[in-house]
C-alpha cells in the first residue's frame, strides 16, 4: 500500500546525510511542506513558551485524530464527507452526559440526569453510539456518490447540530454541559495539561496505528479500488457496500473518540463547537494535508492549528479577524491546490 510519504522518508534521509539535503530540497514540495510546518511548530513552541504550546498540542492532537479518521473515508474510499463533525459531536456529547457531575438540579437552568461515570467507561459508549449512528446513516448514504454524497453529508452535519442544539432534555441545548470528567486510570488522573497532551498523543498514535493497519491490509487495497471504480470492484467479487459501510463506521468511531477527548479536555461543551463550518474546515485540512496519506492529515492538522496562532502575530491584522483570515487563507489554498495539486500537499490520490 502506498500509505507512506516520500516527504517524511526523505526528511529522515536528509537528517542522516546532510549532503543529500540540497539535492532533495530542489523541487520536492513534500519535503518543503514537512520542513516548513515542523520548523514552524518548533519555532512556535520556543517562542511562545511551553504552556501554550501544550494547549496547542492538545488541540492539534484532537484535530489530527479527526483528520486521520476522515482521510480514511475521503482519501482512501473517495467519499467526500462534510458531515464528520456529527460523529465528533456524538462522541463529545456522550462522554459529556455520562461523565458530567454537575448539580444541575441546583442550577436555575435546564436539568438533565447526571451519571458521573469515569471517562474511560463513557468513552467506549460514545464510540459505540457513534458507530451505531454511522451504521444507520451509512445504510441510507451508501447509495449516494460524488457530489450527491457531499450534499447529503452537508445535511447530516446540519441535522446533527440541530439535534445537539434542540434536544434540550438530553444535551441541555444551548446551555451546554459542565464539569465533564478528566480521564483517570486507577489513581492516575490526567488532570494536568501535560498529562492530557500525552493522553491525546497516545490516542492519536492508536488512531494512526489502526488507520495504518487498515490501509496496509487487503481491506485497504479494496477501499482504494472502490475509490477508483466502484462497479469494477464489484465485478471482482467484493460487496462494495459492506466495505464502504465498514470503513465509514470505523472512521466515525475514531471521530467519536476525538470528540470524547475534546469534551473531557474543555470540560464544557455546547453545540457551537459542532457547527457545519467546523466540518468544512476539517475537510479542508484533510485535502490540504493530502488525500490517502496518514502523515499528510497529521501535517495538515498541525498546519491548521499553527495557522491561526501564527496569524495572531501579523501586525496589520487585528486580532478579531484572525479566525476569518484563516478561513480566507484556507479557501484560497483549497482553490490553489485544486488547480495545481489536486492530491493535496503530500497526497497520494487526486480527487
Amino acid at each position, binding site marked *: 500500500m502506498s500509505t507512506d510519504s516520500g516527504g517524511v522518508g526523505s526528511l529522515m534521509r536528509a537528517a542522516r546525510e546532510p549532503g543529500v539535503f540540497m539535492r532533495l530540497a530542489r523541487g520536492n514540495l513534500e519535503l518543503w511542506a514537512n520542513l516548513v510546518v515542523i520548523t514552524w511548530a518548533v519555532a512556535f513552541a520556543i517562542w511562545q513558551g511551553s504552556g501554550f504550546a501544550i494547549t496547542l498540542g492538545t488541540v492539534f492532537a484532537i484535530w489530527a485524530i479527526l483528520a486521520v479518521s476522515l482521510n480514511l473515508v475521503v482519501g482512501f474510499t473517495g467519499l467526500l464527507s462534510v458531515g464528520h463533525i456529527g460523529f465528533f459531536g456524538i462522541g463529545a456529547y456522550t462522554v459529556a452526559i455520562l461523565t458530567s457531575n454537575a448539580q444541575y438540579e441546583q442550577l436555575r437552568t435546564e436539568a438533565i440526569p447526571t451519571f458521573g461515570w469515569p471517562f474511560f467507561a463513557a468513552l467506549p459508549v460514545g464510540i459505540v453510539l457513534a458507530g451505531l449512528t454511522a451504521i444507520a446513516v451509512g445504510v441510507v448514504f451508501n447509495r449516494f456518490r460524488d457530489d450527491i454524497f457531499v450534499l*447529503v453529508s*452537508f*445535511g447530516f452535519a446540519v441535522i446533527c447540530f440541530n439535534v445537539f442544539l434542540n434536544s434540550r432534555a438530553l444535551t441541555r441545548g444551548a446551555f451546554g454541559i459542565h464539569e465533564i470528567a478528566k480521564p483517570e486510570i486507577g489513581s492516575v488522573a490526567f488532570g494536568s495539561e501535560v498529562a492530557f497532551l500525552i493522553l491525546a498523543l497516545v490516542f492519536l498514535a492508536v488512531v494512526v496505528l489502526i488507520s495504518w493497519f487498515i490501509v496496509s491490509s487487503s481491506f485497504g487495497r479494496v477501499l482504494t479500488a472502490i475509490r477508483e471504480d466502484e462497479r469494477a470492484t464489484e465485478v471482482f467479487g467484493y460487496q462494495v457496500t459492506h466495505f464502504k459501510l465498514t470503513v465509514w463506521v470505523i472512521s466515525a468511531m475514531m471521530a467519536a473518540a476525538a470528540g470524547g477527548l475534546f469534551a473531557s479536555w474543555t470540560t464544557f461543551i455546547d453545540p457551537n463547537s459542532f457547527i457545519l463550518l467546523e466540518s468544512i474546515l476539517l475537510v479542508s485540512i484533510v485535502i490540504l494535508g493530502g488525500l490517502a496519506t496518514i502523515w499528510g492529515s497529521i501535517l495538515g492538522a498541525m498546519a491548521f492549528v499553527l495557522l491561526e496562532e501564527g496569524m495572531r502575530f501579523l501586525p496589520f491584522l487585528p486580532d478579531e479577524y484572525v479566525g476569518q483570515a*484563516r478561513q480566507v487563507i484556507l479557501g484560497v489554498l483549497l482553490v490553489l491546490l*485544486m488547480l495545481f495539486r489536486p492530491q493535496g500537499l503530500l497526497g497520494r490520490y487526486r*480527487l
Partner: protein
Amino acid sequence: MLRSAAYRERRGRILAASLTTAAAAYVVWKITESPDQAVQFAFNGLSVGAVYALLALGFTLVYSTVWFFDLYYGAAAAMGAYGVFYLRTSETVGGSHVNNPYVSALFALVVAGVVAWALYEAFFIRMQGRFTRKSLYIAGGTLTGATGIYTGFILASPDYLHLLLAPAVGATAAVVAGWVVSRVIQRLFSKAGRTTLLAASVIVGSLLGACCGLLLAGAPGSRLYLSWAVSCLVAGAVGVALYRGLYVYMRKRARSPLIMLVASLGVLLAITAATAIVFESAPRPLPRAFGSEPWTIWGSNIKGFNIFTIGVAIAGFLGLLFLLKRTSLGRTIRAIGDDEEVAKVVGINTTVVIAIVFFIGAVFAAAAGLLSGHDTAIQPRMGLLLMLKGWIASVVGGMGNLYGAVVGGFALGMVEQFGIWDLAGEWKDVISFVILILFLSFWPRGLLPRG
C-alpha cells in the same frame, strides 16, 4: 431473495406515493383545524419559496450546463445582498460608511477584466481583418480601462449613484428605443429608406435616452433600485471572472466533479470570510424598499415586497424559459448541457456560452440574496444557507429542470412552513434536509424529472 430493479423501483414509488399522501392528508387536516394559520403559513411559504425558487432556477441552469456543483453560487447570493448594503449603507442601521477604496478597486478590476475578455471574444477576431492589431488593442484597452474606472467610481461614490448611472442608463435606453423604432418602421413601412430609418431611430432613441437619463439624474430615490442592478451585475461579473479565470483551467484536468466542488468550496469559504472581515459578521438590515407595509388578505398578513418577490421569481422563470426554449443562445446552452464535446465540435464557442450561463446564474443568485435581504436581513453566512436551500429545492423539483426548480422552490418553502406546525420551529432546517434525503433515496429524479 430475488429483487429485480423493477421491484425496487416500484417499492420506491409506492413509498414515495404513500409519503406524499400522508403529507397531503396532514396538511388538509391542519388546514381544517386552523384555516387562519394555514393561510398565514401559506403566505410565509410563498414568500420564502419565491427566494428558493429563484435560487433553484439559477442553480439548475448552471448545473445542467456544466454538471458540477458550483458553490460560488452561494457566495453570489451573499454578494448580491452585500452589494446593496455596500452601496446604500448610509440608509441602513449603523449609518457609518463601510465604503472601502480597496474593495471598490478590486471589483473595478474584476469588471474590467471581464469586459476585456468579453470584448476580445466578441470583436477581436471579427475586427482583425479591418483594423490593425495595434489599433484594436488600443481601442479595447481604452474601453476596458474606461469601464473599470467607471465601475470604480460607481462603487466608491454610492451617494451619486443616480448621477453616475444616468448616462449609462440613458445610453442603454437610447439604443434599445432606437432598435425598437427601427424594427417597427421596418414592419409598418416596408418601403422606408435607409436614411429615414436611421434618422427616425436616432432621433427617437436619443430623445428617449436623454429623457431617461435626466429623469434618473433628478431622482435620488432611485439609488436603492439602481444599487440592485449594480450588485447583480457585479456578482455576475465575478461569476464570469471565476469561470474564465479558474474553472476553465480546472475543468480541463478535473477527473471528477469533486475537484470543481472543492475548489468552489474554497471560493465560498474565502468570500464568506472576506465579507465578514469587511462588513463584520453580525446580521444587518438592508434599507427599506417599497412595500414594507403588511397587507391583510383573508385575515392574514403579507408584505407587498413579498408579492413582488414572488413576481420576480415567476418573471425569472418565464425569462429563463424563453431564453432556453426560444432563443438560439438557449439552444446552444442546452446543446452544451447535453454534450459539451459535441457542441464544441459543432462550432459553438462553449467558453463564451458557459460564461454567459455563469453570469445569468450568479445574477439569479444575487437577486435572490438581495430580495431575501430586503425581506429579512443579511449576514455573511447567508450564502451557504441559501445555497443549500437552493440545492434542496432543485433536487426536490428535479435536477436540471426549470419547471422543477420553480415547483421545488415553492414546495420546499411550503413544506418548511407546514412542517413546523406541530414540531417546534427550531427544527425547520432539519425538515428540509430530511426532505432532501427522502427525495434522494426514494425519488432521486425529483417531482418533475428532466427530459
